[in-house]
């Protein structure tokens, strides 16, 4: 044993000779704080700055001709299109129609997604039977299925909500399943040792443990739901931001197109902000 120890000692001494450390002076030096970093501090003034800068750059670029006006109109033109839309009184109708589809479709899709993700994470038989189905159906483009949706759900709100529902369902399934897999097994064992009911363990241990992953999935699914507004409103939609964007696109009205896309962006920002709030409230327990 002793030989081993002295071997290590030698190693360190050799190392020391090689190292270039200078002999340090005998003064009091404060301990360097090394626990810093890796903590995200809020910087609430940055996002508005970034957006303002970007839009200003774009505007200047457009005006100077540096950004070709071919397909990307200046933000001011898009803003004008937006104002026109607001004046026409259609804005509220578009937004209302889209919000309704979004909220209903996303809520149902996400809740179903969490349910299925949990099932797949909890039951071997669900894992074996449903997960391959999810993997097989997720990559099917919704646009290819639109004709089917028309037949199954009609051309009313049904098919639109179904499109958004399907779109948000799958990412949430995968995120929730990943979250369940990541829950500390020791905590589950603890629950079992106290004879908690299966349902209690799921609700009080597994669900909260998977929550960070689920919320991350919600972020993704919300964005996808917004993206799918456009696909959803291809079918028989009179109003809706997606329909507005589509019409603008097919008429090559780029100013309207950008105005519509900006609305989708802002919707995305709002949803992301809301989920951020939810994270802050629900995940306070994280160190």
């Amino acid at each position, binding site marked *: 044993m002793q030989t081993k120890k002295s071997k290590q000692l030698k190693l360190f001494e050799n190392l020391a000779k090689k190292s270039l450390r200078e002999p340090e002076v005998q003064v009091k030096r404060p301990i360097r704080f090394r626990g810093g970093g890796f903590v995200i501090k809020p910087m609430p003034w940055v996002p508005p700055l970034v957006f303002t800068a970007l839009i200003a750059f774009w505007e200047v670029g457009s005006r100077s001709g540096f950004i070709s006006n071919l397909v990307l109109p200046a933000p001011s033109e898009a803003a004008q299109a937006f104002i026109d839309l607001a004046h026409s009184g259609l804005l509220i109708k578009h937004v209302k129609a889209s919000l309704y589809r979004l909220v209903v479709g996303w809520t149902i899709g996400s809740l179903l997604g969490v349910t299925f993700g949990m099932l797949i994470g909890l039951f071997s038989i669900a894992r074996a039977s449903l997960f391959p189905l999810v993997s097989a159906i997720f990559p099917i483009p919704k646009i290819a299925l639109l004709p089917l949706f028309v037949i199954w759900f009609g051309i009313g709100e049904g098919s639109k909500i179904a499109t958004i529902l399907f779109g948000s369902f799958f990412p949430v399934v995968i995120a929730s399943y990943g979250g369940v897999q990541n829950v500390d097994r020791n905590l589950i*064992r603890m629950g079992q*040792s*106290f004879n908690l009911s299966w349902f209690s363990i799921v609700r009080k241990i597994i669900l909260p443990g998977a929550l960070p992953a689920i919320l991350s999935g919600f972020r993704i699914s919300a964005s996808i739901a917004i993206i799918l507004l456009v696909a959803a409103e291809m079918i028989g939609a009179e109003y809706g931001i997606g329909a507005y964007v589509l019409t603008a696109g097919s008429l090559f009205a780029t100013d309207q197109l950008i105005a519509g896309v900006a609305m989708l962006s802002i919707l995305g920002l709002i949803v992301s902000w809301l989920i951020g709030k939810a994270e802050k409230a629900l995940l306070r327990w994280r160190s």
Partner: protein
Amino acid sequence: MELHLNNIGHKYNNLDVLKEISFSIRQGEIACIIGPSGCGKSTLLRIMGGLETATCGDVYISGEIPSNTINPLTFVFQDFALLPWRSVEANISLVLEDHPIPTVQRKEIIDSVLARTKLSDFKKALPKQLSGGMKQRVAIARALAVNPAFMLLDEPLSALDSQTRELLMSDLIDLWQRENFTACYVTHNLNEAVRLGHKIIVLSRRPGTIRRIVEIPIPLEERHNHLAELEYSQQVLWNLMRDEALAADRELSNAD
């Protein structure tokens, strides 16, 4: 409530962890298990608690299960196993919620066990805000809350300072006198073992087999009057452990 182990053996993959373990814990008896780190004590406890199935052998219980217990066979885990998203209070509440206890009474139970583990001030704290010892006390409080008939304790006092340990130890003795629960207590503190154990099971190094079972026939409540005998028992245990360690050392040097 009695517990019987019959020729228990356990393997993890190809690692032999336990071998030919047989003993019984009688009603109202506290059995302490001591043994070198990694010899399979926690594994054995999990097998006794039904959280793991032994590779071979059987575990039985017999005797009546007292009717005033919420969870007859209760664990205190070595790694605390607190839910990080629940406050101290809610972590204890967790194990009561599945039972038909009126809210007021549940609150009373929680307050009582928190007072006994000196955590009343930290009722609302989250686990991340607790020190190591405080977490351990929450784990103990949680186990006390269900008024167990049989306790499986895995180094329950290891992270505690000596006088908190003393207090909790005499608390356990008090509780035992009143409720006469049965317990299996894993510890690496020989003093704890001789203070609390009716029977001390000494395991060999991995694969854990029973090296000796030492019975201490002095009633728990009288032990403070028999310090010399306890000291002697502790010495016996210490020698057993030391032999084990020396044997292990010899093996290691040979392997070199």
